């Protein structure tokens, strides 16, 4: 017979102190792309390798749409003078903070057409290494009890109505987080006629957390941004 209490005690405290203390990803983690000053011809090898159209020519540096980047690293590998990829994980962008939340929020998740990895990373924020419960973040089964709606995936045609109904069923004030590059912008499906589009084509989005998939630390950061406890990346959004 297992003694799980002893088992847990033997492993000690695994939990990160993030966001009260800083967190880190390993050095080689492909987090966020930055454009370096480089002539157009050096930019092109990277731009043409981007399947999601996240990169555009620009002067003195290319323009990067962080919400479209799916972190493949092709641009930095093919055009190292024009693009660099860093291990940054605090990538959440804030469009508006609709809801003045207090200490604790309840979160409902809806999968609108994900690749299945976003769900596993969202699940991971409740594992002992991240323990989102310590931050007052709890899952709820019904949108009626939810303060925050986290949506994963590019929105497919059959998920439009279920997504809208889940949003409508939530009480005010409410906040919506688009989780993952596909949810934020459509990602590699951004220009596909076979899907409806990013989450904000259907419901208003407050916080965008890009990533393929976003790491658990990125998700914690995005939640903290939604709750007004952390600074978003990249300043104000249009």
């Amino acid at each position, binding site marked *: 017979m297992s003694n799980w209490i002893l088992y847990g005690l033997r492993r000690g405290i695994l939990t990160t102190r993030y966001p009260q203390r800083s967190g880190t990803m*390993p050095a080689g983690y492909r987090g966020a792309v930055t454009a370096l000053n480089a002539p157009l011809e050096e930019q092109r090898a990277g731009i043409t390798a981007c399947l999601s159209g996240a990169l555009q020519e620009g002067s003195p540096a290319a323009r990067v749409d962080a919400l479209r980047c799916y972190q493949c690293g092709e641009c930095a590998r093919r055009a190292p003078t024009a693009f660099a990829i860093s291990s940054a994980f605090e990538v959440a962008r804030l469009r508006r903070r609709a809801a003045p939340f207090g200490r604790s929020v309840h979160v409902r998740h809806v999968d609108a*057409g994900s690749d299945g*990895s976003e769900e596993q990373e969202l699940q991971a924020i409740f594992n002992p290494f991240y323990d989102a419960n310590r931050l007052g973040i709890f*899952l709820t089964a019904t949108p009626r009890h939810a303060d925050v709606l986290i949506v994963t995936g590019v929105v497919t045609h059959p998920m439009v109505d279920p997504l809208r109904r889940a949003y409508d069923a939530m009480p005010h004030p409410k906040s919506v987080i688009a989780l993952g590059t596909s949810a934020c912008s459509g990602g590699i499906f951004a220009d596909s006629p076979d899907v409806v589009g990013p989450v904000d084509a259907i419901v208003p989005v407050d916080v965008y957390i890009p990533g393929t998939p976003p790491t658990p630390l990125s998700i914690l950061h995005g939640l903290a941004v939604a709750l007004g406890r952390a600074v978003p990346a990249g300043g104000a959004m249009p």
Partner: protein
Amino acid sequence: MSAAEMRGAREVAQRVLSRVRDGARLAWIFGDRVGDRTVLRYVVSGEGGLEEYPGSVLGPVPSLAAELPAALWHECEARDRFGVIFEDLPESRPLVDVRPAEELRRADSPEVSTILYGPIRSGIVESARWIVETAGEDFISVYPSMFFKRRELERRFTGVPLDLAAHVAEHASGATASSHAAAFSKAAEAALRLEVPERARATRAVLVEFERIHQHLDSLAKLADDGSLSVGSSQTFAAKERIHRLLAQATGNRFARGVITVGGTRFDAMSHLADVCDAQLDRLEAEVLAVLEALFSTQSLLDRLIGTGKLAREVVIAYGAVGPVARGSGVSCDARLRDGYLYTPMAGEESLESQGDAVSRALVRRAEIVRSFRSIRNALDGAFAGEFLAPARIEDGFGIARVESPQGELLYFVRFDGGIARVALRSASYANWPLFVPSLPGNIFTDFSFIEHSFGLSQAEVDR
């Protein structure tokens, strides 16, 4: 072979039926367009490997589903997507087109209620719907209504440059991205008759075995959670987290995305993997084995799994199921024993159990995790010198290949005509979902999640 020289699909269907009667497994039927002709491609897994039988669709095609349940979803999808008419197809409802809820209520007895369970369900789960007819605790009938997540991923490959296309395959199922990238790449390499450097083959094997470990842990952690074993579940998720951390350090992504490509790997991931494993693999393995030991000595959890979601061996064979679901019922189907290996063919016996219930499937996963660590060490100990990428050039033709993903055999078809003309995939989850229905009779409503998590399937790779 041009479509004009091809046999008719009627004749091919008969040939396939006789191959299955001889003991081969029907793996796949899918539509393709060659010129202006619709072609049905039948794929069976026989003793010698995969066999592909193309047949021109000239008129109605006899349905194999009445005799072979394994054919049902494939024929429905070919009907829905390619307009193929199957004679006597036992299912008239559409498979891939989601119908409005009003059309689905069909219980005609006042004691029986129809519950539409999904597409949004409680917890963090992928979207799928189950239409459940119940008179209380018992399942009267259950019908899967899926494809809510249909992104038309197979079409997204069209026109994508060969050296970027594996990124699209990784989007089929992000949690098993390495398996998808490896299976897609193998199919393309088969079409192009491309030899992959040993170093790259070893890298792919290491990544897919790590993937198997983290996905099996995911399934076991969810089973523990279903059994209200919250510390056990948390500690199993913690063990899974350690794998993702190792992969992030070695490959730059927690699911090892962006490594595998046609011809090898995109960068020399093996040198990073070797360093990271050298420092961490022993401790990681000890942690994973410790949590497995603790889980499988928690009798309250095992009691909940014993006898739950039982599947007889004959049913598994008739449905053509694969992976731990099939092996839990004693059906041998590990692609790594056959042509589905990535580095070296799997040595020795595969992990089989005979009871066919949820605990059997969990035991298969435990044995496979232990074996995966061995395979990782074997690949790391292998040849290290040499290139990691062979240059690939597109030539017209097609290839089919398989890889043993965590959920089971994963098949890809790639056809080149100038560029990428058609990619199709048959995931293990697609092969296994139909079997969920016959696993339910005799169980009660609260067994649903145990059975679902003992299957451990992904929705994204089904809906595509």
